[in-house]
């Protein structure tokens, strides 16, 4: 009987700094700060968690609001995500990516899970034609920080590099939580094309934002 195989051993989260293989962040200082806070939170440091909240709550809430489009639900999602960050912090592995990415992609994914659980796929597909508006809603209050403005501008510039089709596909996925199959269906394009538009769009953004460092 040889079915038991330990393919790899998962190490502890230990190193406080980003690993050398992880790409440096554009907002380097913020990203590094978040990573260090996360490691401290993993050791049960409550004051670090308070600081981590300050550093990330607006982004976590903002993306939840963007995806679920309801402030009360967005608050629930943000609450769940941030508590989950506290709960799982010790399992964050700096060598696998930045702490900022760990938290924010978790927030995005949770928001999508929530919107999917609230709406049947077919409902969203049906409603899509009438509900899609511009690519960005006006946020109520953008957090007042200089680097945020810089980042929003940087994001806008990055998005401007995308073709309209790439932007459209990426927006359906990112902001509406469509799966690539739903993106393909709603745009009337083959599945492979939908996947490629999403991927190519992300590659352009990745290149644009990594180059600035």
């Amino acid at each position, binding site marked *: 009987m040889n079915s038991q*195989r330990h393919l790899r051993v998962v190490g502890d989260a230990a190193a406080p700094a980003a690993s050398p293989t992880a790409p440096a962040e554009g907002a380097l200082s913020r990203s590094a700060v978040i990573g260090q806070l996360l490691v401290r939170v993993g050791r049960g440091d409550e004051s670090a968690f308070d600081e981590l909240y300050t550093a990330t709550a607006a982004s976590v*809430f903002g993306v939840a609001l963007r995806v679920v489009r309801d402030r009360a639900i967005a608050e629930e999602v943000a609450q769940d995500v941030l508590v989950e960050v506290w709960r799982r912090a010790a399992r964050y592995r700096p060598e696998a990516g930045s702490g900022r990415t760990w938290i924010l992609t978790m927030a995005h994914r949770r928001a999508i899970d929530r919107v999917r659980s609230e709406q049947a796929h077919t409902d969203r597909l049906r409603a899509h034609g009438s509900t899609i508006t511009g690519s960005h809603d006006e946020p*109520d209050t953008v957090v007042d920080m200089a680097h945020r403005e810089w980042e929003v501008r940087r994001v806008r510039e990055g998005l401007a590099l995308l073709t309209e089709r790439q932007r459209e596909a990426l927006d359906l996925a*990112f902001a509406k939580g469509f799966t690539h199959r739903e993106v393909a269906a709603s745009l009337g394009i083959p599945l492979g094309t939908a996947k490629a538009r999403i*991927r190519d769009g992300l590659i352009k953004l990745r290149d644009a934002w990594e180059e600035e460092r």
Partner: protein
Amino acid sequence: MNDTIDDPHSLLGPYVVGAVDEVDRQLFENHLRGCTECREECARMSDAVATLVDAEAVAPPATLRAAVMGRAAQTAQLPPTVVGDAGSHGPRKRRRWPLVGAAAAAVIAVTGIGAVLATADDAPDASALEREVMMVSSAPDAHTMELSLGSSHLVMSERMGGVALMGLDAPAPAEGMEYQLWLVLDDGQMMAGPTFMPDADGKFMAMMHTDFKDVTEFEITEEPRGGSAVPTGEMVAAVSL
């Protein structure tokens, strides 16, 4: 374009931006384990997605901080090592056939050779199933094997004490039939597993808690809806250990 539906690499973009359903997510995460290139690319693209997220920042309601801090204060933190998960399983020996869950229809509990059959017509909680599948396929000892039923995988984990099946583009079984998983023991005995039914897109997911002592092979057969106590239908796929 060399993208095909079956090529896991092509799921990279959709995966990073969350545009995958649970089955695709699991398929891609299994792929990620063995593909350094995709892992690195995934990390870089995820940074881009995080930047998109950051750009959405909106001042949260003032009540959020207190709510988060209050709940955190009452929430135990997970220990640093992944899996084994918070001592919920421990080293204890699993019962042989504690629970069987299937995506679409029946839940079958089998005890020993005498095979007691119990079915539940209501679909079990799909998200509970997804969680179970995720537990198995994200275990550090998860072992993935290809399954010749559309584009499918079987993942087993000794640590999690379970085997998960997930797939895409599986052909529909004959009218009135479902697929059923079997564990073949070294003495030739066939232990009944869950039945499952691909959806319209050929997607399916199924999960069975078991240990793997004496198991030599997994087989999938077509069985009448509700499943059988012993295999009666044609074998459609098999994986040897």
